[in-house]
């Protein structure tokens, strides 16, 4: 994964829990352009631990003068977002990967309906800028618990086809009303918690939409958990994965060559064969099939963990 050192040029609080970060090239060089829905992976050297988290870009995809992300502080998370909030200062240099898009707009669409829950608004902000530029037809539905927490409100322009559904103001998002009667050529994009994505899928199925019109991205950060051990079949070594470390990070720390891209269980690049498993793999990915999950023969080290006596990987 190619990456470069970029300078943090702006930090702004968008809400009590969400901060916006802007990165620019230290000598002002132009950064590669991207498309709406793309993310970058930020490297966070935290003590002797190197964390890498993926964040959706919220800046204009056609603007190479900088990249911007919005990070929500997850106090129960592994510490990546806490690091961004507590340790990163304006002027710092961080290693940022080239943008990659696993959630791009479908150009066959005649209309785009973008649905976001909470911090899931981030990829949709860049998609919106792309749509505004190409004068595409779209509507945005953004659901948040309260106005105070709704960081996205600061990033969304005041347009009649952009709707905020704030639940503690009694305006819950009604998917049926949003999706019913959409014209052919509509594509729907959902980013947010898994429950929201599942509800959109159920609703469109009930309404008889073709499956190909659905697009989604779960924001999946590697969950923390108990420490566990894995054995690497090729070298015979056993390594320990810390409670706030992902298996992928532990493999990287042990200098094991492993490919990755999304670090969120969606792209399939880090897929690893399980040689033997005595215990239970805690699968958290969206890549492997249900059968592959239950057979415990493959694992996605970027998000999944293990509990049990012994796990041997073909690495």
């Amino acid at each position, binding site marked *: 994964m190619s990456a470069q050192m970029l300078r943090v040029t702006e930090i702004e609080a968008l809400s009590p829990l969400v901060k916006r970060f802007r990165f620019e090239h230290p000598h002002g060089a132009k950064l590669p352009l991207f498309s709406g829905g793309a993310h970058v992976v930020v490297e966070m050297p935290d003590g002797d631990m190197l964390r890498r988290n993926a964040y959706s870009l919220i800046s204009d995809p056609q603007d190479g003068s900088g990249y911007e992300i919005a990070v929500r502080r997850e106090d129960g998370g592994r510490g990546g977002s806490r690091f961004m909030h507590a340790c990163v200062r304006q002027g710092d240099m961080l290693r940022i990967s080239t943008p990659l898009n696993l959630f791009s707009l479908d150009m066959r669409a005649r209309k785009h309906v973008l649905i976001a829950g909470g911090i899931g608004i981030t990829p949709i902000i860049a998609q919106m800028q792309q749509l505004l530029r190409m004068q595409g037809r779209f509507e945005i539905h953004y659901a948040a618990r309260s106005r105070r927490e709704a960081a996205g409100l600061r990033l969304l322009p005041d347009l009649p086809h952009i709707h905020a559904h704030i639940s503690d103001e009694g305006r819950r998002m009604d998917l049926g009303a949003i999706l019913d009667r959409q014209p052919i050529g509509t594509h729907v994009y959902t980013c947010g918690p898994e429950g929201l994505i599942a509800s959109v899928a159920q609703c469109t199925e009930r309404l008889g939409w*073709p499956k190909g019109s659905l697009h989604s991205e779960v924001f999946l950060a590697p969950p923390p958990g108990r420490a566990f051990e894995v054995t690497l079949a090729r070298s015979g070594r056993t390594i320990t994965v810390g409670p706030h470390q992902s298996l992928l990070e532990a493999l990287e720390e042990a200098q094991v060559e492993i490919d990755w891209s999304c670090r969120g269980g969606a792209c399939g690049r880090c897929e690893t064969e399980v040689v033997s498993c005595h215990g239970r793999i805690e699968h958290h990915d969206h890549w492997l099939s249900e059968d592959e999950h239950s057979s415990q023969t493959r694992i996605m080290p970027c998000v999944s963990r293990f509990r049990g006596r012994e796990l041997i990987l073909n690495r």
Partner: protein
Amino acid sequence: MPATKFTPSITSRPVYDGLTPHGAVPALMLANGPGGEALLELIKTDPTIPGHAHVIYIPEGCGFGKTLESKGFASYFEAASYASVLPRFRKLLAEAGMNTRLYLAGTEGLIGQATSEALEAGMLPEAIDAEHRGSLARRMQCVHCKGITENVTTDPFTCSHCGLSLFVRDHYSHRHAAFQGVCVDAETPGEIPPRQEIKA
């Protein structure tokens, strides 16, 4: 007339899987000639279909119109040609919702043109059912003048636009919904191989 079977040898030629009933959902149906019979067979399998379906039928000398008209479709319209009914088809597509299915039945030329029209309107291929009925005639595009000649049954044939003698290629363009015709006597003007009937 049964559904037309193709020899599977032409890889760029689309394969139509036939019409499958999708129940009481909003539908558009477009058929020409013997394709009318395919629509009748379809609704026989599921009598809830017609109440939600708008039908356009181009008889081209076939007598299925009367029966179709009596089946209680949401609307039924008969037209002389695809070209004359295109504005109506476009309007139906523009007014259709995301749950609309499209059923196409008839010649390859009709299916191809209507499919690209529906895709252009943003419909997804998975919402389209098609069944080829009737002649094996090909809709041909002249690669030289770009003109379209309909219902070509012989190889070579004469381009109805520029008059060149064209060889019928098996190369199908999805965008134009047509096979490609290439000048057959470009190197040896006037030397035209005997005409043969197209059999596939």
